[in-house]
Structure formats: structure tokens, C-alpha cells
């Protein structure tokens, strides 16, 4: 049993070169550690940098983007991998699942050909053996009659089925880390439930690590042990999924929780956060959330806050202690008057 992290990001920064020769920061110093077998949720809105993080981890950044800082997978530096090492890293190290499976599968080839291509090419398996393995994995992700599915084309199956095919294709490479980028956003809720259940079961059975990217905080809490809330290219809060509802301390995390309507009751009014989410390059010198924050002071606008331990998690807010004290005061006085 090794204690070495599966994935380690330190001060990961991604800049995007603009056409006029300037540069725009999309990720601004990300520190993250993932142990083998652990599931971490990355939650954020547009511009938070969550998808860019996945691209940086897999070294699939667009040409105009450059990454700084370090990404280590099982202790090895991803940036310095040569072509062969990178191939091995992507085939058996990390597996990627995207939001829209149709955009990532060749519509002119049968599902069987898609699933066996890597096995035959990279691993040198014969056609029969590769097909047998693909069939077994399709059964593992809950697909009935897998032999028939192998002969079908992508457009002959539903979106939910195709996402399972994508998961199967990732599993065939037996990765130690799965990066799932909004894997269920395009699916119906009942299918979403099946797909996340499959991912969860496979992760446990195979001891894989998983980074689960979503805009849906409640979904992340259901799937992951730890959740990192991102805003403007930075983590603003990191804590265990089970304590997040109770202990969320960053005003943005609390705002996100208040923004979502509940299924079991109608709120007289949602506690919407004013303004809109920004990207890292649009943010001012201080706290990126300050312009939308009800608790911000002038100091918040100029001094960038650090990620510090608070109530069992990490929070990037200079006023977190005061806000927390105010909230506790209010709660106690409410209880006293009740």
C-alpha cells in the first residue's frame, strides 16, 4: 500500500495567448491532491476553469494555451513526458469521459470497431480476443445483449447507451484515474442516476481515482468524497462532501447552495448571487468573487485571499472567521427568541 498520491497538481496555471499578442489567465494556481481510489468533485460555473483543469491534466490543452506549475501522476511529471510515456499515460493511466459522447465517436464505424481499436493497435490483441473483451466490459457497464451492440453504429443507440459505451472504452484501457467532464449533463435524470451508479461501482471495484467535473453541486456531493468549488480559475472551498451542506463557509459556496431551487419545497425567493460569474482574467487584483459578495469590504477588492484551513476544510476568504461568527450569532439569537 503506497501513500503516494495518484495525482498531484501544484500551482497549476494556464494562460491563453490572445490574437493581439496578449495573454489571458484561465487557471490561476491550482493545488490539488488525489489519493488512489478517491473521488474528487470539481464544481463551478462558466469560466471557473474546471474543464481547463482536465485538459491540462491530460496535456490536451489547445495550442494557444500554456500550462505552468506541476502536474504529477503517480509521482511522474506529466509535462516532461516524452511521446511514448505520454501515450502510455493516456492509455492505461488516465481515461477521459466527456459530456457529449456523440462528438467523440466516429459515426461511420461500428461500436465494436471503436471499442477494439486501441486494444488491437496499442496492445496487439487479435480481433477475436479484443471483441470478447469489449463484450465483457459492455456487460459490466450494464448493457444487455452486448454482442448485438458491438455490431451497431453509434447513431443506432440512445445517448445514455452511448455514454455507457464511452465508459466501457475508457475501462478497456484499465486506467488508474478517470476524468469525467460533465459526463451526465446531456442525459435524462433517470439515465444520469444509472450512469453515475455505474461509475461509482466501477471506481470502488477497481480502486480507480476519479475527478468528477460538474456544475451540479448536489450531484458532486452524491458521487464524490471531496468537493472543490472553483471560481474564476481558483479553488475557493475544498471540503468533504458529507460536511459541505452543513459547513460550507465561502460566501460563493453558500450562494450556490441557496441558488438551487429545492425539490421538496418552494422558496419564497431564491437567494440569487448578483452579477455573473467571471473568468480569472476578468477578475480584479483582490478576491475574484468580491464584486458579487454581500460580505465584501474594500480590502477584499485589493488583497487576494489565501486558501486557509477552516472548519475541517479549506476556504479562500479573508473574512471567513467574521462571517462565520456573525452567522453563528444570528442562529443563536434566533434560537433564543424562538
Amino acid at each position, binding site marked *: 500500500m503506497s501513500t503516494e498520491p495518484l495525482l498531484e497538481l501544484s500551482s497549476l496555471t494556464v494562460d491563453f495567448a490572445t490574437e493581439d499578442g496578449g495573454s489571458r489567465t484561465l487557471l490561476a494556481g491550482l493545488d490539488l491532491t488525489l489519493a488512489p481510489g478517491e473521488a474528487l468533485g470539481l464544481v463551478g*460555473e*462558466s469560466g471557473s476553469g474546471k474543464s481547463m483543469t482536465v485538459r491540462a491534466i491530460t496535456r490536451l490543452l489547445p495550442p494557444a494555451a500554456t500550462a505552468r506549475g506541476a502536474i504529477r501522476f503517480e509521482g511522474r511529471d506529466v509535462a516532461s513526458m516524452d511521446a511514448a510515456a505520454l501515450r502510455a499515460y493516456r492509455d492505461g493511466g488516465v481515461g477521459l469521459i466527456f459530456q457529449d459522447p456523440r462528438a467523440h465517436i466516429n459515426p461511420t464505424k461500428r461500436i465494436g470497431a471503436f471499442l477494439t481499436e486501441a486494444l488491437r493497435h496499442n496492445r496487439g490483441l487479435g480481433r477475436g480476443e479484443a471483441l470478447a473483451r469489449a463484450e465483457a466490459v459492455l456487460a459490466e457497464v450494464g448493457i444487455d445483449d452486448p454482442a448485438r451492440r458491438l455490431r451497431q453504429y453509434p447513431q443506432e443507440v440512445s*445517448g445514455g447507451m452511448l455514454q455507457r459505451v464511452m465508459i466501457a472504452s475508457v475501462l478497456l484501457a484499465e486506467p488508474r484515474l478517470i476524468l469525467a467532464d460533465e459526463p451526465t449533463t446531456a442525459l*435524462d*435524470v*433517470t*439515465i*444520469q*442516476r444509472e450512469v*453515475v*451508479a455505474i*461509475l*461509482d*461501482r466501477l471506481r470502488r471495484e477497481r480502486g480507480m481515482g476519479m475527478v468528477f467535473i460538474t*456544475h*451540479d*453541486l*448536489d*450531484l458532486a*456531493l*452524491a*458521487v464524490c468524497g471531496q468537493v472543490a468549488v472553483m471560481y474564476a480559475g481558483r479553488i475557493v472551498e475544498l471540503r468533504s462532501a458529507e460536511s459541505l*451542506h452543513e459547513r460550507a463557509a465561502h460566501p460563493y459556496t453558500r*450562494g*450556490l447552495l*441557496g*441558488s*438551487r*431551487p*429545492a*425539490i*421538496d*419545497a*418552494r*422558496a419564497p*425567493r*431564491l*437567494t*440569487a*448571487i*448578483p452579477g*455573473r*460569474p467571471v473568468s480569472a482574467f476578468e477578475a480584479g487584483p483582490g478576491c475574484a468573487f468580491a464584486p*458579487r459578495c454581500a460580505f465584501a469590504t474594500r480590502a477584499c477588492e485589493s488583497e487576494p485571499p489565501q486558501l486557509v484551513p477552516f472548519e475541517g476544510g479549506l476556504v479562500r476568504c479573508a473574512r471567513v472567521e467574521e462571517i462565520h461568527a456573525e452567522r453563528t450569532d444570528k442562529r443563536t439569537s434566533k434560537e433564543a427568541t424562538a
Partner: protein
Amino acid sequence: MNAVEVRSLNKFFKAHHAVADVDFDIPAGGSLGIVGESGSGKTTIARMLVGLECPTSGSIAVLGRDRSRPARGSTERNTRAQELQIVFQDPYTSLDPQQSARAAVDEVLRHHGGRSASERAQRLDELVDQVGLTVRQALARPRDLSGGQRQRVAIARALATGPRVLVLDEAVSALDVSIQAQILNLLADIRAETGLAYLLISHDLAVVRQLCDTVLVLRRGRVVEQGDCGQVLDDPAEEYTRALRAAVPVQGWRVAV
């Protein structure tokens, strides 16, 4: 009089029975949510209400006037537009990229005339203000606006004809969570101020609960159950509604093992 009355509504696409014997009412000022998964027929119902699809059989009445057949001539078309409007999921594709928000709304006000230039300008200011756009945002083109701001433009444009019914086809689904909350609050305010009736098409049960009084659960074109929103969602009579409800991740929801 009910704002919307739909009776025995059917739509076939060739052999595919997309909408099957659907009945519902929306009282004046009421708010009905139609929920269902992909292929349930919910968007087809919205399109038939607006007149983008023609029912195969059955009737649709808005403010007591039948609209199950295409409008005959521009007068009837204009009347229909003044009765019911629609807001789509993606305001980026439903707005003209060349037009500022003000111009887009003004175009509707001009078409549904009867106002002097100064009255129109005043109404325009009211609408822009009502949907929470700043003067500067109102002069910007869609590409310079965020998704939430664009959806505000689409709502202002829909309100410009002075409709009594607003169809919201997944109108908040593509928005960021914090923006979705703003638009849901805005829609609740508009309904409280104007007494408009809403028909919300959505796959999101929590959004429906937040905005609607009644709900209709649709599956493969058929009504599974309908009734008071709180009652149907808290105590579903049908297995399918229970499954939909149970699939929504909430606090304490764990993935099924």
C-alpha cells in the same frame, strides 16, 4: 375563463405518436409545469401552442380562442401573438446577432403598433427595466451579453406584445446556477406583477416546483399524472413520477449501489 385549454391533443410524426390524448388547463394567472425526459413530447406541445406545429387532432384554446388550425391572415396571427409568447432555451440562437436588445424589443412594439414614438420609447424603457437590464446592456448586441442577460432580452421581447400567456421552453436550463436563480426570481416577479399565465417546459423538477402551481408529468407523449405541484412531487401516485423524483440528486442522496 382559463388562459389555456387543451383537449384530446394528438400529434403524429408519420407513425410516431409524439403526443397522445393530452388534456390540461391553465387558469388565468396560473402556472403549469410540464416535465418529462427526452422524447416525452413536451417540446412538441409547446410548439403546437405557439403554432410552430399543427396538431393531428384535438383542440387548443388560448383565452377562449381556438388555435388548433393555422392562423388565417395577419390579423389573426397578430392577435395570437398578443395572446401568447414563447421564450426558448438558447437566447443566442433566437436573437438576431445584428440587433441590440433595444432594437429587438422595439421591432416587436412597432409591429404591434398603435403607439406613438414617445409612447413606444416609454414602453421600451419600462420593459428594459422590468427584466433588469441596464441602459448600457440594452444597447449591446447579443454577443456582448452573457447568457443570463440574453435571456432577459428574450423575455423583454416576449413581453413586448403584452401577452397573457408565456411559454417557457427550458428557458432556464442552459444558464449557470447563480444566473438561473436570478431569472427564476425575475419570472416569479413578472408573474406577480402582471398576472401572466406560465407554461414551463422543463426536465428539472426543482425548477418546476419553484415556479409552478400545477404540474403535468409526461412520458412517451402520454400524461402519467397531473395535479398540484407540491402534491404530485411529494406524494406521487405513479411509479414513473416516483422514479423521476428519486433520480434527482439532493442532500443525502447516494448513488445506488
